C-alpha cells in the first residue's frame, strides 16, 4: 500500500518550529565551544609568561661560573650558586637513599605478601594520608625531630624533610608498578617450584623495575624543586658545604632569599637559579617518562 507521506516532496524539508530552535542550538553550541577553547588557551598565557621571563632574565647570567662560585654578599656583583647546586643534589640524593628502599620494600609487602591483610590496608591508608600532608609540615617535622634534637640546622635535617615528602609517593607508585606485572608471570614462576622470595626477586621486581624507576624519578624531580621543607631545616649558607651537619644552601632557598632582596644583581641571580632549577626538574621529569616508561611488548 502506498504511504502518501513518503511521496511528498516536502518530506525532508523541516519547517517545524523545532528547526529554528535547531539553529539557536547550534549557535549556542558554537559559542560554548569558543568559550571552552578560549579558556583552555588562557592557561597558556601565564605559562608562556613564566617560561619567557625565566629564560629572558635568567639566561644573561648563565655561564659555568655560576656552578663554580659562591653567592655574592648583599649588594655585591658577580658570584654564582655552585654551593646551592651541590646542596640540592646532595640533600635530594640523601633523601632518596633514605626514602626509596623502605618505600619499595613496603610496596612489595602490600602487593606480594599480603595484599588484603590489615597491615597492608593500614599502610595504604597511611601513605595516602601522607601524600596529603603539605610539604611545609615535612619541614616542621624535621625541625622538631632533627633540628631541635641536634641543636643545629643541617643538610641532614633538610634531607629528612625531603625523605618524608618522597616516601609516600614512591610507595604508591611502586605499588602501581608491581600491580602492573601480569599474573601469568607469577604463576609461571610458582608453577616451576619457586619460593615467594625467588618469584619476587627474579621475576616480579625485574619486570616492575622500569615503572618503579619512573616513580622514583618523578619524586626526585618534585623534591628538587621544594623549598618549604628546607627553609628552616637546612636554612642557607654562603659557603661550600663541608659537612652534612651544617646549614646548607639549596637552589630553591636561594631563589626564595634572593628574589626579595632589594639588589638588582641578586634578583638576576634568582632568575638564573630559577632557570637552572626548571631545567633540572624538567630534565628529570622527561627522563622519567621517556626512558623508563618503555614497557616491553
Amino acid at each position, binding site marked *: 500500500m502506498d504511504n502518501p507521506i513518503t511521496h511528498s516532496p516536502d518530506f525532508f524539508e523541516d519547517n517545524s518550529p523545532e528547526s529554528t530552535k535547531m539553529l539557536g542550538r547550534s549557535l549556542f553550541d558554537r559559542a560554548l565551544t569558543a568559550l571552552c577553547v578560549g579558556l583552555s588557551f588562557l592557561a597558556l598565557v601565564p605559562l608562556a609568561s613564566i617560561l619567557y*621571563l625565566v629564560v629572558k632574565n635568567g639566561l644573561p647570567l648563565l655561564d659555568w661560573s655560576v656552578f663554580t662560585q659562591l653567592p655574592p654578599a648583599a649588594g655585591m656583583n658577580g658570584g654564582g650558586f655552585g654551593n646551592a647546586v651541590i646542596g640540592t643534589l646532595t640533600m635530594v640524593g640523601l633523601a632518596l637513599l633514605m626514602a626509596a628502599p623502605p618505600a619499595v620494600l613496603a610496596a612489595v609487602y602490600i602487593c606480594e605478601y599480603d595484599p588484603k591483610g590489615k597491615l597492608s590496608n593500614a599502610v595504604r591508608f597511611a601513605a595516602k594520608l601522607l601524600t596529603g600532608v603539605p610539604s611545609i609540615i615535612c619541614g616542621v617535622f624535621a625541625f622538631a625531630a632533627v633540628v631541635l634534637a641536634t641543636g643545629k640546622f643541617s643538610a641532614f635535617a633538610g634531607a629528612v624533610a625531603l625523605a618524608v615528602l618522597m616516601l609516600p609517593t614512591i610507595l604508591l607508585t611502586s605499588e602501581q608498578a608491581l600491580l602492573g606485572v601480569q599474573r601469568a608471570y607469577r604463576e609461571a614462576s610458582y608453577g616451576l617450584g619457586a619460593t615467594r622470595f625467588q618469584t619476587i626477586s627474579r621475576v616480579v621486581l625485574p619486570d616492575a623495575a622500569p615503572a618503579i624507576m619512573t616513580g622514583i624519578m618523578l619524586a626526585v624531580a618534585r623534591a628538587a624543586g621544594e623549598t618549604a621543607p628546607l627553609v628552616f631545616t637546612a636554612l642557607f649558607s654562603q659557603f661550600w658545604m663541608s659537612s652534612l651537619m651544617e646549614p646548607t644552601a639549596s637552589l630553591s632557598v636561594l631563589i626564595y632569599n634572593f628574589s626579595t632582596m632589594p639588589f638588582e644583581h641578586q634578583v638576576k641571580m634568582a632568575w638564573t637559579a630559577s632557570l637552572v632549577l626548571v631545567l633540572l626538574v624538567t630534565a628529570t621529569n622527561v627522563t622519567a617518562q621517556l626512558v623508563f616508561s618503555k614497557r616491553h611488548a
Partner: protein
Amino acid sequence: MSAPAAAKDALTAPVRTGPDYFLWLCGAASVGAIFVLGWIFFEIFQEAIPALKEFGAKFLTNATWQPNRDRFGVLPFLVGTAATSLIALLIALPPGLAIAIFLNEDFLPKPARQFIRFVVELLAAIPSVVYGLWGIFVVIPLIQQLGSWCAERFPNVPLLAGPAYGNSLLTASVVLALMILPTITAISRSSLVAVPRTLREGSYALGATRWEAIFGVILPTAAPGIVAATILALGRAMGETMAVAMLIGNSPRLSWSLFSPSGTLASLLANQFGEASGLQVSALMYAALVLVALTLAVNFAGEAVLRYTEKRTAGIR
C-alpha cells in the same frame, strides 16, 4: 627404582628454603611507613603542648599574633588560608573544567589536545618558588594597578578598600589559582573519561548536540568526580607555602580587603620558624597542627568522594 617410588622420595626430600627473611624486611618497612606518619603527629604534637596548655581553643579565635609579647592567635591566618584557597578555587575552576572537557572531547585535532595537555603538565612541574618569583614581577604590579583603580572607583566597598599594596591576598590567590589548575584538570578529566561511552552514545542517538550531551549527561555523571577534584584542589591550595609567602605580604593583622597584605597558616610557618624561640616555637607547632588537621580533613573528604564516584560509574557499563 621405579618411577613412582622415586617420585615419592622426591616429594619429601628436604628443600633448602628456610624462613623468608625478605618477608620480615618488607614487613618491617611497612610498619616503618605507618610509624613515620605517627611520628610526625607525635613530634609536632609534643612540641605544641606548651602552647596548647597556654591557649587552648582560644588560639583559633584570637586575632593577635605578637611574638614579643607571647600572645598568639591564628584567626587572621585561618581567615587568610580560607580566603586565598577559596578565591583561588573560584578563579581556577572554570578554566580547569573547560580544559578537562576540551581534552576529553574532540573539538580540535589530536596534536592540539596533546599540546594543551603538555602545557598543563608543565604548569604542574614548575616549582612553587619560581611561581613566587614570577608573581613578584608580573602579578604584583598588575594587582596593584587593579587595586588602585578599585579603590578609586569603589571607595566604600570594604572588600576592595585601599591602600592597594602589591603584596596582597588577591595576588597570592591569583598565583595559587594557577598552581592548582593542573590538579583540577587532571582529576576532572579522569572523571570525564570514566563516563561510560554508552551514555554518551545514547545521548547522541537521541539527537543531542555535543554540548547538550555534555551538560545533560556527561557532566552530571562526572559531577561527583569533579566535586572530588575541587575538594582535593582546595586541600592543595591550603597547603601551598612558598608562592603564597612571597606574595601575600605576611601581615599578622586581620583585614577584609582583597588588596591588603594578609597571611596564611603555611606562610606563617615559613616565615617565622627560622627565628623563633621559646613559646613562639610551640605556638607555631600548634599552628602546624591546625594546618595538618585542616588539610587532612579536606583530603579525606576528597578521597571519600572519589571512591564514591568510582563505585557509581563502575555499575554502569
